């Protein structure tokens, strides 16, 4: 029963209750801040900041403790396996989060917008706004912009002549390459090539930052030059929410990878044995997941 000799049951811990309390402060702050958006002198945002800071700090010390326990040899192969399963199921939950937004996109594209335009089985809906015609990307709204700001241009494929200035294509190239580089890092780690590992991981982190930069550029374009905003009807809603949550996940994944880079470069963590580098591997799984989501976005939001 060798693998079972080392059940690791951690002693009492203060981290969870700190995390729960700071999460509470965070969401109370967030809700009050959002409710007070019209009042610039509201103090709620400081509650939000306090929550963010304490939640971030708790997570930092919590993760640090887990790493220290690992380095002290307290954990076991079994615990490591628990982390592996845990991470996999966490990523599955993220998949389902995106599924909700993709589901909304498919629903409006196949059902609600055509119906509002008078097509299909529920085309009766057209009597709400009789002048509305269904198209996609939707550059108007059924109420013809009465309550919304209608965009001039969409983010979709602009035609072959303009392809080189089309940011989403560059975004795709950047993100796909970063999946390759993080994989190269992993190969080198397993081959005990620590230097190359650091370099490839560094390249990945730079690509992540570059992606976020391009994405910010794209949002700037949208808001400043295309008139495309959150308030542009369902096209803008789905576009910004899908790419926005994806961008947020890129930042999270990038943060994870940077932490791994710092741990590797400054603390010489991670060894070739899979048991000795799951932190990195988990971050790289997350990174591949973010990449797959982008491929879906590229297809269903930008191209099709």
């Amino acid at each position, binding site marked *: *029963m060798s693998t*079972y*000799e*080392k*059940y690791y*049951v*951690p*002693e*009492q*811990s*203060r*981290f969870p*209750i700190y995390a*729960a309390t700071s*999460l*509470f402060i965070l*969401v*109370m702050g*967030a*809700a009050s801040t*959002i*409710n007070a*958006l019209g009042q610039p002198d509201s103090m709620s945002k400081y509650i939000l900041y306090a929550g963010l800071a304490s939640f971030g700090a708790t997570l930092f010390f*919590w993760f640090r403790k887990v790493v220290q326990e690992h380095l002290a040899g307290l954990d076991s192969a*079994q615990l490591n396996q*628990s982390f592996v*399963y*845990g991470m996999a*199921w*966490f990523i599955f*939950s993220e998949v*389902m989060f995106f*599924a*909700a*937004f993709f*589901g*909304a996109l498919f*629903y*409006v594209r196949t*059902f*609600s917008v055509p119906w*509002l335009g008078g097509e*299909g*089985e*529920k085309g009766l*809906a057209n009597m*709400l706004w009789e002048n509305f015609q269904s198209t996609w990307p*939707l550059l108007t*709204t*059924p*109420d013809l912009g009465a*309550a*919304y700001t209608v965009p001039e241009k969409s983010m979709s494929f602009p035609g072959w002549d303009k392809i080189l200035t089309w940011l989403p294509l560059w975004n795709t190239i950047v993100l796909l390459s970063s999946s390759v580089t993080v994989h190269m890092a992993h190969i080198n780690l397993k081959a005990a090539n620590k230097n190359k590992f650091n370099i490839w991981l560094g390249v990945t982190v730079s690509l992540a930052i570059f992606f976020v930069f391009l994405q910010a550029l794209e949002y700037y374009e949208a808001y400043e030059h295309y008139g495309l*905003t*959150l308030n542009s*009807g369902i*096209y*803008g*809603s789905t576009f910004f*929410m899908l790419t926005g949550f994806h961008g947020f996940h890129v930042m999270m994944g990038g943060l994870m990878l940077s932490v791994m880079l710092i741990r590797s470069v400054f603390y010489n963590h991670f060894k070739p044995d899979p048991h000795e580098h799951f932190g990195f591997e988990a971050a790289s799984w997350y990174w591949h997941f973010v990449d797959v989501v982008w491929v879906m976005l590229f297809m269903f939001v930008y191209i099709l």
Partner: protein
Amino acid sequence: MSAVIESHDDHHHGPAKGLTRWLFTTNHKDIGTLYLWFSFTMFLIGGAMALVIRAELFQPGMQIVEPEFYNQMLTLHGLIMVFGAVMPAFVGLANWLVPMMVGAPDMALPRMNNLSFWILPFAFLMMLSSLFMEGGAPNFGWTFYAPLSTTYAPPSVTFFIFSVHILGASSIMGAINVIVTIMNMRAPGMTLMKMPLFVWSWLITAYLLIAVMPVLAGAVTMMLMDIHFGTSFFNAAGGGDPVLFQHIFWFFGHPEVYIMILPAFGIVSHIISTFSRKELFGYSSMVWAMVSIAILSFVVWAHHMFTVGMPLAAELFFMWATMLIAVPTGVKVFNWVATMFRGSITYETPMLFAIAFVVLFTIGGFSGLMLAITPADFQYHDTYFVVAHFHYVLVPGAIFSIMAAVYYWLPKWCGNMYDERLGRLHFWLSFIGVNVTFFPQHFIGLAGMPRRIPDYALQFADWNMVSTVGAFLFGASQILFLFIVVRTVMGGKKATPEVWEGAQGLEWTVDSPPPYHTFSTPPEVK
């Protein structure tokens, strides 16, 4: 051989003293206890709100509360019972039982376990605090359909949204913990098809939770954006659709109702087998029935939306898919009955609750089948018939199974036997209370009384009065339950390790109460 490694010197593995034991604990039994007491507290709060509702409905006309407040009570009652009472109770039972049943020392990720619990009190503090906010608490029903929950919502909806967010985070973490424990911590020899059915039921439940809680998070996020940041997911003027909200909500919502009943299936299977002194009639068919129910639960959601105006093909598809669920459900019911058939049955309190579960849950299943018939549902939808249906599956279904579980395992947990006479009294009061409350709601529903309205036409008066009397009886008998449990925890006849003659499973091989870390070395599983 010291098998449990602890990073401190205390080798007794006993609990810490004082309040910090509960705040900082990483022990699955402590956390299970916290969940169960929390759930009971929420059960009483949500129950008090139900009594406000029933008191208002005692007679036609406006009697006690304002309509606005009535709506807030209705909404909070539903949310509290679903997310605060039933779900945490099952997570508490999973905490107590899953590690013991699979032969593990604790849950796989003990610190995250503590975090999952402690998020809950904060989330409900946040939700309940909305009662004192300007505009009052959420008033749009527990299903929070847009645009009631967006365009026409009180400002407190923002707090509601974030509360749902952290509740979801708690559920996802709890579910990950259960799955990982089951997949990774089983004692050697405990193959999947040797796992106790409660463990199986929770494996499937946890999978459902991880699949649908993020979808709920997506739904409330879209609401938040629609309300505050100008998007138009649920607004047709911008090209969205309020019906989209219902699709997303029920894609979460229907699996959610199975989240609230699958663990009950597991519990009842254990209890019926023990008190019939027979092996379960068909173990593997029970497992496969649960797996099929879980899979089907993803393709039936729109049976809640038959009247909303869907294409005909969708109406038909969701009707047939829903009816299909009756097949595996029937497999389970026949299984329980066949287990009892020719058994040497004794009627201790857990068994009474379990038998009542089988009978009354089946009634709820049948009314569900009636609702699944699309043309019939055009009549029944949004009437008290629906209220009767889901209360039959939730109260004598989920809640009775939880009570059965408490009576069944409480002697194991605290080492003392409960008072059998009082337990039976509690059962009969609850049984009568539940039926007097909810059976008449079938009649007034079929006669056309709409749900979610504080006033009604005169012809519904008699049965409403009966229903309210039943509700107060049921409510009062839960005080007796509290009394019985507290008394048992404080003392009483000592329980043996087996507790029940013929009970099967690893948890009955250890002392009552079990050691703080149950299995520090993995037990033998044959």
